[in-house]
């Protein structure tokens, strides 16, 4: 009975899954533009994001590793965005002073890129 109710509830909710880390994906998309992420990465639906310094971020939600070093989880992605050198001291990705709240929104958007 409970199971049935849960699955019904889940089925009803499926188009509106909770976003990764509870962030705001739309705001995240705008932030990716504002922090200039697109000058190094190609990012779908982000204006002028056609950089070729780092890898393209299409499909990043399903990629297995971040920066080649961290297992891809929302928490690790936020940590990597905020302090890339803590994950890999040699990485070419710079620290852009992203706050925790902003990182959470960026992750919410990037996790929509299946």
């Amino acid at each position, binding site marked *: 009975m409970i199971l049935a109710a849960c699955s019904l509830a889940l089925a009803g909710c499926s188009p509106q899954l909770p976003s990764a880390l509870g962030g705001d994906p739309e705001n995240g998309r705008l932030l990716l533009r504002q922090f200039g992420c697109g000058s190094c990465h190609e990012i779908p639906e982000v204006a002028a994001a056609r950089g070729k310094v780092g890898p393209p971020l299409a499909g990043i939600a399903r990629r*297995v590793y971040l920066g080649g070093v961290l297992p891809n989880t929302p928490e690790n992605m936020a940590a990597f965005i905020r302090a890339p050198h803590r994950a890999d001291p040699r990485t070419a990705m710079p620290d852009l002073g992203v706050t925790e709240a902003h990182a959470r929104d960026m992750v919410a958007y990037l996790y929509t890129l299946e």
Partner: protein
Amino acid sequence: MRLAWLIALLGLSAVAGGAAFIRSGLYDISATDQHLPPVYWAIEMAMKYSVERRGRRVQVPPLGAPEQVARGLALYRVHCAQCHGAPGVAPEPFALGMTPLPAPMVQTGREWPAEQIFWVVKHGIKMTGMPAWEFRLSEADLWAVVAAVQRLPSYSPEEYRRLTSGRVERADTPAESYQPDVDRGKAALRQYACVGCHEIPGITGPAARVGPPLAGIASRQTLGGVLPNSPENMTLWIRTPQKVAPLTAMPGLGVTERDARDIAAYLATLK
């Protein structure tokens, strides 16, 4: 005219039926489900004639010098006996669970001509456990393995044990001043299983998402997040990623200098 329509209709319904059969999941892909005898026969024949045809183009060098057989036996023990067994040696448990079963080389060595053994060892066989050794063994070592396989049926278990007690070092291809070969690089990308982790344009493989896709890698500026992209750095990165980036998940795959340069040449075409 009516006949043409009928044939077209039959062809179309065969394709649709095949697609429906695939989509239904009725086909049992498990290794424990044995092939029906006619299916087994058809696959076996397709393999046999394919190898026969391609073997005709192989030039067989003189085989059987004692040093060559010794080298071949040492390689056989390290690379082949796990699946194919040897006189008095059973295959490893994983090999016993394979479908198709790896053939016992004591029989193949008696029945197959050298050029066909060579062709299979070098190129491997699709949809079986038989890998291609072209990118792992030099041409001379491939022939040494053929020479050993041909001798295998003549050894008693006791002789085989005595002859394979030595150790084997990997022979590396020397890095001459070498003009990279794009097509060879493309083949090497499959042969070193790069396509298991990266999506690579021009190479058929699984939807791999372990590392980043390599489309456009030629115009990307950084390798592995750490190294400026150049032909030399690409070769270095492919050969020793964990020396370049100690924390990287990308493993070193024992890529030779020549193979790495060929791979880099192919990747340089992915603009």
